[in-house]
């Protein structure tokens, strides 16, 4: 039993970890693009801004369980399978990208506009403003945002587990629920709670460490 739980925990960490990194890889640039193309920001591009916003909203409004099923053909085409941890990473990533983009947007919009203008007045280019002002100034907010995405990825990964994705969710459903193993159910829940707690505390600690405001 303990070996199973350990194995499932590793699977969950793997799924969430990979999905988090991938969604950050795509979601952070999207969030930056969303912000800077906004009206009265450093690179106003109304068409791009609005289309991006619509796409993100669509992604955000799809329930995860529906997205999971709906993109099975895409998942198969991309990674050759739609089941197991690898199969679960694709829908997890796809659903986390728009979330990540919004979270990044919120963090970047918090940056004091006066500071951005000061950089403009000093002759900074758009790229320099992004890399030297927007991102560094938003770091604490970005860390908290990524923490939020990580926590929701854990709960989504449990859902992905329910449709054969592996991990703690899978274990809880197969043993805890279908085979009436209350002890396994309890332990998986405790492990999940511990995971969420530690991610949240670490994120909060890191954000305040990096905050010089």
């Amino acid at each position, binding site marked *: 039993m303990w070996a199973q739980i350990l194995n499932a925990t590793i699977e969950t960490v793997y799924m969430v970890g990979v999905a988090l990194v991938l969604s950050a890889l795509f979601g952070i640039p999207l969030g930056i693009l969303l912000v800077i193309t906004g009206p009265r920001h450093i690179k106003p591009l109304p068409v791009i801004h609005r289309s991006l916003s619509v796409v993100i909203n669509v992604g955000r409004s799809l329930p995860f369980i529906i997205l999971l099923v709906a993109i099975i053909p895409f998942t198969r085409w991309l990674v050759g399978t739609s089941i197991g941890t690898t199969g679960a990473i694709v829908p997890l990533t796809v659903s986390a990208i728009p979330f990540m983009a919004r979270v990044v947007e919120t963090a970047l919009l918090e940056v004091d506009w006066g500071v951005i203008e000061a950089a403009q007045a*000093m*002759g900074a280019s758009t790229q320099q403003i992004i890399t*030297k*002002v927007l991102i560094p100034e938003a*770091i604490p907010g970005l860390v908290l945002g990524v923490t939020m995405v990580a926590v929701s990825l854990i709960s989504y990964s449990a859902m992905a587990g329910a449709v054969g994705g592996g991990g703690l969710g899978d274990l809880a459903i197969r043993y805890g629920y279908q085979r009436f193993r209350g002890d396994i159910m309890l332990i998986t829940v405790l492990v999940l709670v511990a995971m969420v707690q530690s991610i949240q505390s670490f994120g909060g600690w890191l954000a305040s460490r990096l905050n*010089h*405001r």
Partner: protein
Amino acid sequence: MSTVMIELEKVTKIYGQGDKRVVALADVSLQIKKGEIFGIIGLSGAGKSTLIRCINKLEEPQAGTIRLAGQEITNLQGKELRAARRKIGMIFQHFNLLSSRTVFRNVAFPLEISGVKPKEREERVRSLLDLVGLADKINAYPSELSGGQKQRVGIARALASNPEVLLCDEATSALDPDTTKSILRLLQDVNRRFGLTIVLITHQMEVIKEICDTVAVIDDGRIVEQGSVVELFARPRSAAARRFMKGVLHTEIPPEIQERMSAEGPRQQHGKTVRISFIGGMAGQPIISSVIRRFQVDVNILYANLDFIKNMPFGSLIVEITGDEANVARALADLTAQGLKLEVLAGVGPDS
């Protein structure tokens, strides 16, 4: 002779459209000379920030041209605009320092973006921090500094790229009076040391009085008056300028004295109550005692006030001059001849 550093020609800036249309600047023309400290004063909403922000194109005017050292700013774009901006320093009311960077890295910022090598950067930052008196705060974060210290960092940062012009948008409005004075002194120091042209906007006449050479008064998007600061204080022409002056120079007769004047009037037959205003060197001379001696009149000082505009004494005196009619008249004529501005407030006998 002095050359023109910044020139605005018929600059018009309009925000919004329809009912939200606001004419922030209407046909503004200005000439700012190289090496001077040029003040722009106006009430809230008069268009001061808009005006100063047009100079580095943070705002784009709808009409008019702005030239800086002969180069037209108004039609610059992209790379050229960024290069031009590097020659214009700017400081702000709320300092606008990067909270994620230490003092050192804040001052290094403009050098970093213009590609100065790290070693050179470090030397330059250290000398700038020495200049503004913050060498010991080099590794502090802005949140650990007082307002005055933050503005010093702002000034060091603005000077880092060796600008020809420094724009100050209400740079002292968030500071207490003592700190304001010390920041103004620093600005005056860099103006003299580097021959830097400084444009500063403010709603405080004290700031203008303290360090500006030339001043423009802006009211509702229009320049209603401009000239030397001394000239403005001696002869304010616009209503807006007079309004600002009131609080700074006590040109008003205090109510207690006004009451006394109307209640008693001059006590003797031939006497006048006069306000004597002076500007410049007069303060050091024994004008009053000399008048008393030479014309055998009595002078009773009711009220006196002395102030300084950029180290130039400026003040007014309300006196009662009494004595023989002819002597009083001669005394008044003599004071006028010395270049003093006389205003008879009350009196018996013929006016001079």
